[in-house]
């Protein structure tokens, strides 16, 4: 089924610490996943993606981990900076009635404390 946003979880981290944002996805057949960052007043921006044939993918200061057994995705941000403050969404690319679409998670607000 699809995620329903009941509330927006918030993660507060000290500047310079590492952040871990988690996401549970819904369809075990989904094979492509993306993390997006949404700053206030803007549209979601692509951060990093991963396909289901991988468990881990690294970018610049970001790492995505995929655990297909428990349908779990995480985004790790190293040395969190004030500019990382935003809402983060995971999205799964899933098949529905013969076509593919993205289902977004509920989102997590990341607050970076100085």
């Amino acid at each position, binding site marked *: 089924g699809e995620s329903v946003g009941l509330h927006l979880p918030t993660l507060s981290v000290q500047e310079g610490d590492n952040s871990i944002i988690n996401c549970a996805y819904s369809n075990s057949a989904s094979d492509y996943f993306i993390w997006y960052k949404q700053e206030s*007043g803007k*549209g979601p921006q692509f951060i990093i*993606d991963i396909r289901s044939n991988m468990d881990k993918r690294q970018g610049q200061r970001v790492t995505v981990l995929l655990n297909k057994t428990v349908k779990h995705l995480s985004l790790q941000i190293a040395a969190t900076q004030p500019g990382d403050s935003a809402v983060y969404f995971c999205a799964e690319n899933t098949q529905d009635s013969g*076509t*593919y679409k993205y289902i977004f998670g509920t*989102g997590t607000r990341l607050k970076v404390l100085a």
Partner: protein
Amino acid sequence: DTAVSQTPKYLVTQMGNDKSIKCEQNLGHDTMYWYKQDSKKFLKIMFSYNNKELIINETVPNRFSPKSPDKAHLNLHINSLELGDSAVYFCASSRTTREKLFFGSGTQLSVL
């Protein structure tokens, strides 16, 4: 040189009015989308078009009518606006339905 641009940025209107939001992408993508983001930031797909053809219609009220005059444009017309239509509407595009989405900057619709 914005990749996905939508207008207007803000739209304030009275209940019962009809309004349109326009979207254009210059990425050469085949697939375009409309998403609705509610006050809790939840993003939900409304429509998807592939090469001007409707491929996803997520049980959106028929007051909402998307139109794709060509594959670079996807407009959204809303009839008889209701209070519950207040939200941020995002246009997005992707090369195919299996590749990453590029989003516009959103249209904040407020129905009074």
